[in-house]
């Protein structure tokens, strides 16, 4: 897909790349330090864990080259920790670019990793995970240990995904991080756009704007359509509480609120990633990968 254009020097689609080191956590040479690197189609996430506990992570935009993106994300996660790649005992790669993570000892699908990561972030009560990635949506049923019981994935188009949202942020000239709140600023929820295909929805949205619809209303109509699509996927896999949302779209209040309304179920509250000691559901896949890395390292030690 084409890179979004910049409007008046503003890149509305651009979301915040950041890294975090959990305060009050220190590592020693005795610790088992592992990493998970989740190279998604839009964002690359790397997480470092000390003895299976989240320590640091970094989120960056995925470039055209998967191995480079993986290295960039991992370097970002290592920043300010005093750790080097060589200190990492085991690294698991995940995401669509999982086979292209040069330093990974093993690749595991993002489906298994998001399941495990959701279990880590929210605990054993989670039974259904909706992972909204850059290019696909997955509805995953898990057990109390975070193991995948069944899953569904949308087909190959980008409808209802992070990438689609970026396209819309650009079209409507609304910064992507405000898109959720703004989509909720409508008095009455409009009918969803009729087509979830990004290309067609874009055309439809332009038509609505010309008809005099406000940007908020157009955005609400698009977000609604996406949320319906996601809710359908959850219903098809079979909704069992608790429900959580991972991936970049977990930060989109417009999506989360609407899914809750459509399904009639509250999701478990997401940690506020802006707080200094808080986890980030966008990194769930990388957390899961780092946990698998720890388990695989332990297993190798025993063998």
């Amino acid at each position: 897909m084409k890179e979004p254009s910049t409007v008046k020097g503003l890149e509305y689609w651009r979301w915040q790349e950041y890294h975090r080191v959990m305060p009050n956590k220190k590592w020693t040479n005795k610790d088992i330090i592992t990493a998970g690197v989740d190279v998604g189609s839009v964002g690359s996430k790397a997480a470092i864990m000390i003895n299976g506990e989240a320590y640091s992570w970094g989120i960056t935009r995925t470039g055209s080259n998967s191995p480079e993106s993986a290295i960039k994300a991992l370097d970002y996660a290592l920043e300010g920790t005093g750790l080097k790649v060589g200190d990492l005992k085991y690294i698991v790669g995940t995401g669509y670019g999982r086979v292209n993570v040069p330093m990974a000892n093993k690749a595991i699908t993002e489906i298994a990793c998001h399941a495990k990561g959701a279990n880590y972030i929210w605990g054993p009560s989670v039974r259904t995970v909706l992972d909204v990635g850059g290019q696909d949506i997955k509805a995953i049923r898990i057990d109390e240990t975070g193991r995948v019981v069944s899953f569904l994935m949308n087909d190959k188009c980008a409808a209802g995904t992070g990438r689609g949202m970026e396209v819309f942020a650009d079209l409507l000239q609304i910064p992507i991080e405000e898109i959720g709140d703004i989509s909720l600023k409508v008095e009455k929820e409009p009918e969803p756009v009729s087509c979830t295909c990004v290309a067609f929805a874009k055309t439809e949205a332009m038509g609505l704007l010309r008809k005099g619809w406000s940007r908020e209303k157009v955005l609400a109509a698009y977000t609604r359509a996406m949320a319906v699509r996601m809710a359908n996927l959850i219903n098809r896999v079979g909704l069992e509480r608790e429900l959580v949302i991972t991936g970049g779209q977990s930060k989109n209040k417009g999506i989360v609120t609407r899914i809750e309304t459509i399904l009639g179920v509250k999701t478990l509250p997401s940690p506020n990633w802006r707080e200094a000691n808080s986890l980030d559901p966008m990194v769930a896949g990388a957390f899961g990968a780092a946990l698998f890395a720890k388990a695989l390292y332990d297993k190798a030690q025993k063998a």
Partner: protein
Amino acid sequence: MTNETVGKRYMPEISRREIDELKSTMKAASQKVMAENIERMKKADPKRPQAMKYFDEISNLFGKRQEEIQAEKEKGKKVIGYMCLFAPTELILAADAIPVRVNSGWYDTSKLGDRVVPVEVCPVIRSTIGAKMIELSPFLEQSDALISVLTCDGMTKLGEILSDYKTIWGMNVPRIKDSAHSLRFWNDEIKQMKTQIEQFTGNKITRKNLKEAIEMSHRATKAFRRLQELRKGSPVIMGRDAMLVNQTFLWDDKQRWTEKTEALCDELEKRAQRKDWVCSPDTPRVMITGTPMFWPDNWKLPTLVEEANPQGIIVADELCSGERILNDPVGVDEWSMDDMLNAIGERYLMASTCPCFTSKDGNEDRINWLLNKVKDWNVQGVIYYVVRGCMLYAMEYTRVKKALDKINIPVYYLDTEYTREDVGQMKTRVEAFLEMLTARVDI
């Protein structure tokens, strides 16, 4: 230049030049795909049985078998093609004609088929239409007549569309099979087909010839069953290899195929005795069911499963392009002409698990067969494979899933198209399913 499309009811105008150009490009691409598939299959099993060499050779659609059939044709033999497994091949063999199945597995030709029917139509159909447009399929081109069995909507119209080029014999299959009335009706269709084949080939189907043909297919079924039996234990053959063996039956010489399959089984038995497995015995055992999968392009799913990380092994399938081909023998009581014809009728109708059937219990035969296969082949997970536009298989999924849920066997619905574009996404799905089956990464 002659206008090829004069009088055509479906097929578009396409110049000889375009036909030749497209054919040569797609043939070259297909040869590459076949060679690559075989290479990957060899790589998957470094100790691949010697006997596979033969099947590799015969799987070349533009090779030895095409030449053999051509030589037979020049000597006056007729070739009778068919699109559905219901075509009574024993009758074709008894009339000294050559049966070949002509469904297309080429991805590229499905795009050509789009010129005739909308993209919503099943790609197996579109691709076969496209293959005919550019004369790509040797076996379809060599067919002097085609048996078109009216099973699904796509197959029903495919025959009609191909009648722009070929003599088509329709066979009307009853959709409710478990009634005496249906069987009588179908047996009449079989008898009519016998007459048609006799008239067309000029060869009378005698009691003796038909008995020989039935006995030939008994021997083939025996070899086939022996091969499937060997897949019940720890894996001695990659699923893809076994699937290729089964599929080559559709165009190979039946006698020779049987001998080569028996030879393969001899090798595999020795391998089993040596406990020389093709992959670790705890590799998840997968069964595939759903839309038929045709060589060479549509080898996508078997390849993904067996090259996945974690790896899976296909131990069984319930496909009309696979184990349904030879599973059921013609059960003859007395070798009278009538009895043989009735037995052929019964074998093709009653034994079929095609989703075109329903009854007061729905397509129960398919459910039962699936459940038995899961048990007998110790299947740990089922991939329900459907191409977009394949309505009947798509619609039966819910029921199959419920039946498998009951016995606690995970099933994954994998929908795709005749395209290579979704390989990456399919890989994630397949690998996540296999991870689920192995569940070997514990915390």
